[in-house]
Every structure is written in structure tokens, then in C-alpha cells.
């Protein structure tokens, strides 16, 4: 149980695009930090006690970007920590900021996550993340050239296509079901100011008209590579009540590691053969819900942001985190349950499928959920959101972050 109740009081973004060549990495981050601080008028940059920064490990070839951008994120002469955990980096940054406040060590904490993918070579970057076993291979007597055979097409999509195949077999979902998720995401993104792929008129036919990248995933279903940054300001319950109209209380946090399934050495290293089983997500959600006192997530959660660069993952995650019964997500999407005005709106920001500045993506999920509770989201749902979740995935399919937040502080059980 948290010693101090942490709350989110402000969220900032910069505009995301495929190439933000008008700014360098530090200036990109600065835009999000400024946006975040401007939205919390009574907080001065000097009030920030601690800064946590993260992006993907060396995706842009910059190994210590947090030192480069110290001045640009109000961190000069302040405690600073860098966190990087693959695709979950943003989620881990968010969770670390939560820990910093919850421990009682720091009052006001700024979490910053970013990626400027146009600067780097994503495939090389992913070689160190999605091919988590890269360094282990030689010790098993494998040659480096063998890696290519295992990964199929590219890194992340190689992982996701295996998940998609298993999910489709389990749930009888069709390619049309996958395309429907993409359409919902891209149309939502068109209504959110900071997103990358805005496609207000896209249809299922448009998506199915694109070529396969790795069966069953098509070009039109894959997330873009974006440049962007996100900043979130945390503080204590007492201070949040004075600063924010609607403070968003972080009531439960779970971050579980799950063994990699398909990219274990020839599937032998994992003891797990179904990549869409995702026990890490199930366990993370269970822990976060138990901390937050949530017994029926499908009834008690009003809004969800899940980490889904690929549409099959969105269907898979909403089931694994307990929002829908197993294999029922495709039907829910068909019936508009997850739409903006549905009973359980999901990824109304446009999701990772529309914008993927990788290091920032897993933080943008809880950040957008917090905005929905505040009523300040770019694509605000019409209903009142009391309780929401933000989920992150990454790191060779084996690290999940799960955050549950609400407009009321954690229920205290005695």
C-alpha cells in the first residue's frame, strides 16, 4: 500500500509526426514538458523535486539523452533518473514516478518519455529489444545468421503475427475484425490533436486492400513510426487537491514480466507455446485491481487505453486485462461497445496503432486515460469517466505495465 497517495495533475504532449525535423531530441521533449507545465498554472518548474526520463535504449544512437536534455526538461541541478525497458519504457517511467511519490520521498515528480524515430534506425534498435536473446544465442552455440530465420518479417511484427494467428484460431476472429479495430483507431486519432496517422474517412475495405507484411497482418494494419514526446506531472493527494480541478489518483500499479514465447530459442526456452496467452498482462491487471479495490473490472472500469501497435493485440489485451470475456472482443467491436459513445470506450486517443513514438507510447496510454477522467482529452468520451486503466507492453513480449486510476483516492481497507 502506498505511503502517500499519488495523483496526476497535468499531462502534456508535443505534436507527433513521422519527421519532426524542425527540432532536435531535446527540443522535442521540451515541447511536451512546456505543454504539461502550462496546463498546471500554479506549478512552477522549481517546484518539481524529481525527474524521470525514458526512451528506447539507443534507438537514436544516443545513449544518455537524459543528460543532453536536462536543461530542456527543467532538470538542471535536480535528482534525475533514466528508465528504459523496451516497448514498456513509457509505462515503466510512469510507474517509477508513481513509486517516487508513493514512497513519500518526493512530492512533485515529472515523468518524461519520448522517441524521435526519424533520427535512428528502428530495425537496429529493435535488434537489441525484440531480439532479446541476441547476446544469449552465441552462448547456446547458435550463429548470428540464424536469427533471421526466427524473426520472420522484421522484429515487432514477427512477434505480433504469431500472436494474431493464435488469437484468430482461439476466437474465430477474421481479418475483417482486425481491420475494424484499425478503422476505429485511425478515425479516433483524427479527432485528437497530437496524433500522427489521422484518417477520418478510412474504411475496412481500405485496410483490407493493402498487401500483407506478415500474414495475417497487412500494411494498413501496422502502426507508424513516429517522433513525439509526452510529459506527466505527479504530486501528492494534498497538493493535487489545491492544484487541479479533478486530480487523477493512481490507485493500482502492476508490472509483471512474462517469459518470451515465440522468440525463445526455437520456441524451446519458454515452456509456453501460445503467444496470445499473455499471462504477464493477466497477472499485472490482477495486482493493480487488487490494490485499487476493483473486483469487477468489466463493470467498474469506464475507459481503457491498451498498448496495441497491431489490431489483434487490442482484441487480445482488452480480454486479458478483464474488460471482456475471452474471445468476445471482436463481437464487442462489431457492436460499437468500444466506440467513443460505447459502454466501454477503448483507445479513443487513436492508440498506438495510429501514433507510435515507441518510448513514449506506453506512457501515453495512462496519460490519455488520466485526461479522460479530467475531461480534457483531445477526443473526449461523452460519458463521465470515473475509473480508467492504462496498459503498456514491450521488451521481447515480456514486460507489461498496468495502471488503474480514478477520480477518488484508493479505498482504504482496515
Amino acid at each position, binding site marked *: 500500500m502506498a505511503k502517500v497517495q499519488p495523483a496526476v495533475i497535468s499531462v502534456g504532449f508535443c505534436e507527433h509526426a513521422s519527421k519532426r525535423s524542425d527540432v532536435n531530441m531535446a*527540443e522535442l521533449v521540451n515541447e511536451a514538458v512546456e505543454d504539461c507545465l502550462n496546463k498546471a498554472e500554479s506549478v512552477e518548474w522549481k517546484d518539481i523535486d524529481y525527474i524521470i526520463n525514458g526512451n528506447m535504449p539507443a534507438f537514436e544512437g544516443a545513449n544518455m539523452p537524459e543528460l543532453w536534455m536536462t536543461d530542456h526538461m527543467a532538470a538542471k541541478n535536480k535528482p534525475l533518473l533514466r528508465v528504459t525497458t523496451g516497448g514498456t519504457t513509457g509505462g515503466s517511467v510512469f510507474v517509477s514516478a508513481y513509486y517516487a511519490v508513493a514512497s513519500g520521498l518526493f512530492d512533485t515528480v515529472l515523468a518524461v518519455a519520448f522517441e524521435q524515430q526519424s533520427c535512428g534506425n528502428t530495425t*537496429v534498435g529493435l535488434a537489441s529489444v525484440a531480439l532479446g536473446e541476441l547476446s544469449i544465442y552465441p552462448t547456446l552455440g547458435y550463429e548470428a545468421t540464424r536469427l533471421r530465420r526466427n524473426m520472420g518479417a522484421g522484429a515487432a511484427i514477427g512477434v505480433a503475427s504469431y500472436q494474431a494467428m493464435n488469437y484468430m484460431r482461439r476466437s474465430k476472429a477474421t481479418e475483417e475484425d482486425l481491420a475494424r479495430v484499425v478503422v476505429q483507431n485511425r478515425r479516433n486519432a483524427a479527432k485528437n490533436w497530437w496524433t500522427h496517422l489521422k484518417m477520418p474517412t478510412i474504411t475496412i475495405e481500405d485496410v483490407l486492400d493493402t498487401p500483407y507484411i506478415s500474414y495475417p497482418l497487412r500494411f494498413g494494419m501496422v502502426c507508424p513510426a513516429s517522433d513525439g514526446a509526452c510529459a506527466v506531472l505527479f504530486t501528492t493527494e494534498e497538493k493535487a487537491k489545491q492544484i487541479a480541478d479533478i486530480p487523477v489518483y493512481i490507485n493500482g500499479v502492476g508490472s509483471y514480466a512474462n517469459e518470451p514465447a515465440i522468440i525463445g530459442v526455437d520456441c524451446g526456452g519458454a515452456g509456453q507455446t501460445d503467444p496470445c496467452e499473455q499471462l504477464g498482462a493477466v497477472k499485472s491487471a490482477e495486482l493493480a485491481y487488487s490494490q485499487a479495490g476493483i473486483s469487477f473490472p468489466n463493470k467498474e472500469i469506464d475507459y481503457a487505453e491498451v498498448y496495441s501497435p497491431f489490431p489483434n493485440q487490442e482484441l487480445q489485451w482488452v480480454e486479458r486485462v478483464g474488460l471482456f470475456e475471452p474471445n468476445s472482443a471482436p463481437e464487442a467491436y462489431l457492436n460499437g461497445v468500444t466506440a467513443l459513445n460505447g459502454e466501454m470506450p477503448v483507445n479513443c486517443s487513436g492508440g498506438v496503432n495510429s501514433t507510435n513514438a515507441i518510448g513514449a507510447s506506453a506512457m501515453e496510454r495512462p496519460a490519455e486515460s488520466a485526461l479522460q477522467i479530467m475531461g480534457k482529452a483531445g477526443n473526449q468520451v461523452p460519458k463521465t469517466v470515473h475509473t480508467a486503466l492504462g496498459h503498456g507492453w514491450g521488451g521481447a513480449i515480456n514486460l507489461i505495465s498496468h495502471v488503474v486510476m480514478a477520480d477518488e483516492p484508493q479505498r482504504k481497507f482496515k
Partner: protein
Amino acid sequence: MTLNLDDEQDVTITKGMVRAEFNFWVGIVMDKFYDGLQEKKFIGTKCSKCGKVFLPPRNRCGDCFAKAEDFIDLPETGILKNFTVTNIKISERKSRNVKKDQIVGLVQIDGADTAMIVPVLNINPEDLKTGMKLKVVWAKNIKGHPDDIAGFEPIGGV
């Protein structure tokens, strides 16, 4: 497969190439700096709050977290704040040793609050003094590139 490392015959050596290409955007602020070099000029930025001047320019002041977006022209002269002398060739790996000692110095341009690391030219190491006045030596071919600054030399010779 078990590897017996005592017997070299059993060791497999794999060689592979990983292509890692990175290209960085300097952004519009540093772009202005390189535009300045092309005209043989130093362009910095000034903090809107404390007035600190940054060269090369940056758009935020770390001390105030205030905007530093006003560009200002700076002179070609500066002060030697610090230096070192080396006979190991700088940024060249083929031949390490050089006959003549090279001097690298930390030069603060007049009016700026920051310093740049640049070669110091046309002076004997024994004549170096911190605090001495220097003036920029431009490269023969100006390209809007960091190498446009060939180095700095003492004003009037020593």
C-alpha cells in the same frame, strides 16, 4: 552442442555486419548557427529572463527554464579559458603521433556565457596563458559545418 573451450577446434567464430545508420535533425535553432558560419558569423541565443548568452545556441535556459529564442550576433574574438597540449593526433586513427604539438582550448566568445572546444593555432605551447585574447581563424572553404572554424589564434601574435 557442448563447447570445450580448452580445445580451440570446438570454438565457432561468427562474423557479421550490423548496419546502423543514424541521422540527426539539428533543428531550426542550430540551423541558424550553421547559417551564421556560412557568413563567417557567430550567432547565439539569449535567455529572455536572466540574459545568459548561449553559443552554440539553445532554445531554453537551464537556470531559468525560460525561452532563449532571441538570436544575437556575437564577435569573432574571445578569451582562452583553459587548454591542453597533445602530440596524439586528434580525430585520426591511422597515424597517432604528430611532430608538432597540437593545442586544444576552451574558448569563451566575448559576450557569451558558454565556451567551445576548438584548436588553438599559431602559438607555441610555452606562450599559452589562460585569459589571453583570441580571434577566430576561418577555414578556406566555408560549408556551413562545424569545421568552418579552423581554430582560434592570439590577437596580434605572441
